């Protein structure tokens, strides 16, 4: 359809109109945020220039570089899990819970099967289970929205905590690893069922491939398919979609299920690629950071990829911060928050005209 002579209109002119302003926003964010964060660091009595120098050096280190990509893969999936429902006008704040449930589902399959079946097959089963689990958890919220009109932003948020409690309940009791030195966690996944690594001894695993495949798939589906077009219509005005004869309920449900499946996949990538066992705090806010990555990218898939790498790099800088400057790793949340505030704030909302 791109090679026709018929003037196919630019499908998204409003984005074109805003592009300059957005680029400016990104530049200001990238330039301004470190200054603000540097001020906080300086108040703490640490030289901000040393901090940034350390962070950049550590990112240049291939080991750290791999770690950034490992993290970016999870964030990318978590971001897409927000971006797809957002196309349909749904707010998926529940990435965190869907990731946890994805990881729990994968772990459940792994615990049962990893000693009995060939590793590759176990991995495939875990992928399916994780995506189904994540989709089901998101589908719960979508179902509540469609049947009893409970707002999905609220229900997905609440379900995050329930999901975490489910995981904790499992690893504190039925799935508890007896040889876990008293730390509550599940038994580690067998080596054969883990996501394969690119280099022996490295950390970069096949998760990045899954994430990129998902990225391309989501991008193409949203851009070229009727389903993607319908999602935009429903997201822009569900009543208009209904009046045009679209099945609004199933469309909303499909968007949320796809989002949940992507988040479940993120849970699998984190579990079978990095963690190998369930433990408290294993998701470290991936869902929320993915939410913000999606907003940073205005829910556009390719930009979610960029945002995921950026946010992953900031977070990985936290490790060097902790080691070199003695600041807690969570301090980097400040840098991330400042970047996001500047970007969110530099985008003037042209929504309502009086």
């Amino acid at each position, binding site marked *: *359809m791109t090679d*026709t002579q*018929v*003037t*196919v*209109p*630019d*499908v*998204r*002119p*409003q984005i074109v109109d805003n592009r300059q302003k957005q680029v400016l926003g990104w530049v200001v964010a990238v330039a301004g945020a470190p200054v603000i964060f540097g001020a906080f660091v300086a108040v703490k009595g640490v030289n901000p220039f040393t901090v940034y120098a350390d962070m950049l050096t550590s990112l240049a280190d291939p080991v750290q570089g791999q770690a950034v990509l490992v993290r970016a893969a999870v964030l990318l999936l978590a971001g897409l899990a927000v971006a797809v429902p957002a196309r349909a006008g749904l707010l998926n704040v529940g990435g965190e819970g869907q990731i946890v449930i994805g990881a729990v589902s994968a772990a459940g399959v792994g615990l049962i099967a990893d000693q009995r079946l060939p590793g590759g097959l176990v991995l495939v089963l875990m992928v399916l289970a994780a995506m189904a689990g994540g989709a089901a958890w998101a589908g719960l919220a979508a179902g509540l929205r469609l049947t009893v009109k409970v707002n999905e932003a609220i229900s997905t948020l609440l379900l995050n905590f329930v999901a975490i409690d489910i995981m904790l309940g499992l690893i504190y009791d039925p799935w508890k690893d007896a040889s876990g030195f008293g730390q509550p966690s599940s038994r580690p996944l067998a080596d054969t069922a883990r996501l394969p690594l690119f280099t022996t001894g490295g950390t970069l695993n096949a998760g990045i491939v899954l994430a990129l495949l998902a990225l391309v798939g989501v991008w193409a589906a949203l851009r*070229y*398919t*009727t389903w993607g*077009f*319908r999602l*935009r*219509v429903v997201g*822009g*005005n569900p*009543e*208009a*979609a*209904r*009046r*045009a*004869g*679209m*099945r609004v309920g199933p469309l909303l449900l499909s968007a949320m299920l796809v989002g949940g499946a992507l988040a479940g996949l993120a849970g699998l990538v984190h579990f079978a690629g990095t963690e190998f066992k369930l433990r408290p705090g294993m998701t470290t806010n991936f869902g929320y950071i993915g939410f913000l990555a999606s907003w940073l990218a205005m829910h556009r898939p390719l930009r979610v990829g960029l945002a995921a790498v950026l946010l992953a790099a900031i977070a990985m800088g936290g490790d060097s911060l902790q080691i070199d400057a003695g600041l807690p790793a969570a301090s980097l949340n400040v840098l991330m928050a400042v970047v996001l505030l500047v970007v969110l704030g530099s985008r003037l909302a042209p929504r309502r005209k009086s």
Partner: protein
Amino acid sequence: MSVAAETRVRRGPAPALLAVRGLTCRFGDVVANDGIDFEVAAGEVHAVLGENGAGKSTLMKLIYGVYRPDAGEFDVDGVPTVIRSPAAARAAGIGMVFQDLRLVPAFTVAENIGLALPMRGPLLGRRALSRRIVEASERYGLPVEPDALVRHLSIGERQRVEILKVLMSGARLLILDEPTSVLAPQEVDALFVAMRALRTAGLSLVVITHKLNEARAIADRVTVLRGGRVVLRNADPAGFSDAELVEAMVGQTVPPLPRDRAGSDGGVAPAVRLAGVRAAGDRGHTALHDVDLDIRPGELLGVAGVAGSGQRELCEVILGLRRVTAGTVHLGGAELHAQPRQAIAAGAVGVPEDPVTDAVVPGLTVLEHLALGRAAGGGKRVGVDWRAVAAQAERLDGTARLRMAPRHRVLGELSGGNIQRVVLTRALGEPAAVVVAAYPSRGLDIATTRRTQELLIEQRDAGAAVLVVSEDLDELLSISDRIAVLHDGHLAGAVRPEETDRYAIGRLMLGGRAA
């Protein structure tokens, strides 16, 4: 004509309460008001006439301080005054009754008025406030119930509250923006009685309207705007014929619609049949009561009624958008099961009452809007065939000739009138079996309104069953083969235009029997 007109201009009954000179207001390249001179005398009703887009609302918002002028001066009681905010306007005794009535539905009447009154501090003094409201409502002859929730009031009652609110906050000059657009003729009469009483009490009123007969009925003087300029100032409406006033408003004369009615032969089976239809409104109340209605192919049925009498629900039931709680709806002989897809498949198209809420996806282009129905249809193709959509757009635009905006424009950036053109082109550009058009000419200029009416008649002549809801009885009388009147969800009667007049219809609208 203006030279001749000056001789017929009447002096105001008293020195000007408000005079503006050289008022100019630009939005980007558009000059909405261009050097406007305007005055209101104490104790007069002054109508500002003009088409949509003539600059009436802009002028009023300048006077009320919502917009700031790029040039121009205000005199209040002959004293130069700066009005750069609604607060300044209110301080000068100018009050505005907005078309969309700025009331909080979740608040009581007293709370709404309390919000508007110039008071200070945290205390409300509920009892004293209620007393003041009762006093004021008696003084001005505007009965209201202080403790009633605004949500439960009718539009007419809300308008009374709004007017009282403006009066109680100390206004001497009231600006009423299209106050009759939501009222039945008899309610309009009641409003006019109240307005005359206010005039007698020494207050000044400015009425924005595009309806000639109303301007004649209520106004002491009229000022006509066209294209942001004054074309007729301080004129006595009695001194002008309708044709002269229309020409002033439009800048050209509009020939009347041909009134040849193709005889609707009773033999054909109805394209739309409603039998004993009951349906609930959005608030859960019964909005349609046992409605029996047939529309034959080749018939244009007008629907009249006070706003909120079940028009919306009637349209939605026929388009499969709303479930019936009793009775049946048949389209082309097949029973409809509240599925929009089914209605669309049966050849039904709709023009929604409120296109911005019901039909417009703000981020989509004109072309993409034309693709809406196509993409909604069967899932044979994975992608959208944009080439076919573009070809269809060409066809629709060529047939409808409504001067639709360029196809790459995004709907969110279009004005209300341009949005309506897109919606109308999509619905009326190709023949349909059933057309359900709610307020099709809302927000359109006179020429486009005319073209829209022609399109509706063309659809009828091509054999469509056409239903048109309108608040403009003159429009209904001129295009309909038959007019059905809704009152409170009941079908109060159906009349033939050639056998009735607006007051007979008005009686039905208010629940009386057909004469």
